[in-house]
């Protein structure tokens, strides 16, 4: 068997191999999946706000936010559990960072309700 | 009698001039005339053959600027 094969022969072999491996059902399922992926991709890429969100992922602020999240997660894991109860809650609420986070959540739910 | 029905099948490949003529013949009234325009070489022989076989009448047939004109009268 010669190791030199033309592109045409490679294509022919690929098609024959694919033909032996695939069934009509497999191709139909693949077609179905491509159909659904295309529809989802179309919806996502044509949603202006979602695209804005995607653009944000490239910004320095976004990188900083991810960084902050990982730092916060680390410190949460390391910090001792709060004592709980009203006293514990008031203590947490007093933290300016927690107040900032709550404000952000509040604004978000206000937007959703608009 | 109403005006001649023009069936312009120039530069059409599918369903093609004869099939267009048959469709239009079915919709026409007995006694009406149809003028078929065709550029398809293959169906040039089929069209008169079909008309004769079915028993309609070829009123006129000529070629002008590479376009075949066949005028048919619906007999039945």
């Amino acid at each position, binding site marked *: 068997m010669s190791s030199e094969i033309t592109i045409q022969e490679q294509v022919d072999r690929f098609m024959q191999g*694919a033909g032996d491996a695939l069934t009509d059902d497999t191709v139909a399922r*693949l077609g179905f999946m491509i159909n659904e992926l295309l529809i989802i991709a179309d919806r996502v890429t044509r949603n202006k706000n979602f695209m804005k969100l995607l653009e944000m992922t490239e910004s320095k602020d976004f990188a900083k936010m991810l960084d902050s999240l990982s730092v916060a997660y680390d410190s949460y894991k390391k910090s001792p559990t709060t004592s709980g109860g009203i006293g514990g809650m008031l203590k947490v609420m007093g933290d300016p960072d927690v107040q900032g986070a709550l404000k952000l959540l509040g604004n978000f739910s206000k937007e959703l309700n608009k | 009698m109403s005006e001649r029905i023009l069936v312009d099948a120039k530069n059409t490949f599918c369903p093609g001039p004869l099939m267009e003529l048959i469709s239009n013949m079915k919709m026409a009234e007995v006694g009406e005339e149809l003028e078929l325009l065709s550029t398809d070489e293959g169906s040039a022989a089929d069209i008169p053959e079909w008309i004769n076989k079915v028993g309609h009448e070829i009123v006129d047939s000529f070629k002008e600027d590479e376009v075949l004109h066949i005028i048919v009268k619906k007999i039945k």
Partner: protein
Amino acid sequence: MHILVVGGGMGGTILANNLARRLSGELEQGSAKITMLSASDKHMYQPGLLYVAVGKMSTSELYRDQKSLLESSIDFHVDPVEKFDMDNNSVTTKSGKKISYDILCIATGSRGHAEGIPGLAEHSCQFYTEADALNMYKTLQKFEGGKVVVATGVPHKCPMSPLEITFFLIDYFKKRGIWDKVDLHYTYPIGRVHSLEPVANWAAPEFDKLGVTYETLFNMKEVVPGKVLSEEDSSAEFDLLVTVPPHKGMQVIEDNDLGKGGFIPTDKKKLNMEGRENVYVLGDTTNLPISKAGSTAHFEAEALGENIAAIVQQGEPVRDYDGKVFCFIEAGDGKATYAMFNYDNPPNPQAPTSGLHWFKTAYNRMYWASARGII
């Protein structure tokens, strides 16, 4: 500017979505509006019926909700049009609503009309509605051998279907192990076995190889039990008659005197209804001498989408429909090919391959992305 699309089949759906994408700014501002009126809240993938008839596809795969296929900016109503008042740019719907428009697009489609040939509906199997396709499958399952005749009426939807159903029937009988008990006879209205000459030149020797007999210039005149008679004074006896029935446009088109047989006289390039500048026609509804096929509706919808959007945005259309048609041809035995042509270029189909059969199989499931105007 109010654009009214009448008909929610392939042509109407692709056109409405295409317009909604192109005019998204105008729709948001309210300077344009797109309304679609359809007879059903479901959208059917019509080419699937051929597969249902031979047990290759299930009926549940044929349907999606029409609303799920439309851009959300399209105002969709299940309320078919009953009256067209083109002098006053308005239509009246079944529910009695009067709707005015600036631009009207008619895409009501066509339907099998076996009743046009005496005895055909009673004595044949066909596959142009879900019920008929299912009924055909059930009849095939009970068939144990004998004379099978394939007969085609004119005009018909999907010019490839007479050949495709023949090759599928051969596959079906072979699979059931009764092919040796079947005499298959193919008839066709014109002087060769298919309207496209290269396709006919390929199919006739295939028939010879498979032992399928054929008769050309055969137009059904009447069907009596066990026998189909032709306009050409010929006949064919059958135990099972499979038909591609003659088609008509929708009744509403005839009732409103818009065109003979329900097909509207249409300009072949601009696609406007003859004599009406603001009325466009697409898909099977036109009287154009081109294939009544989904791809025709698709390419017409794209040309019209571009033109109507240009009219809204800059007052003038920008291009002509070039007559493009692309048809897959299922050739049986797991192979397929395709034919593509337009007003200027004849088709040049190549030998069928299994790759193209997979492409068609995948496309059967990718249709919905096409209806949404993505592919």
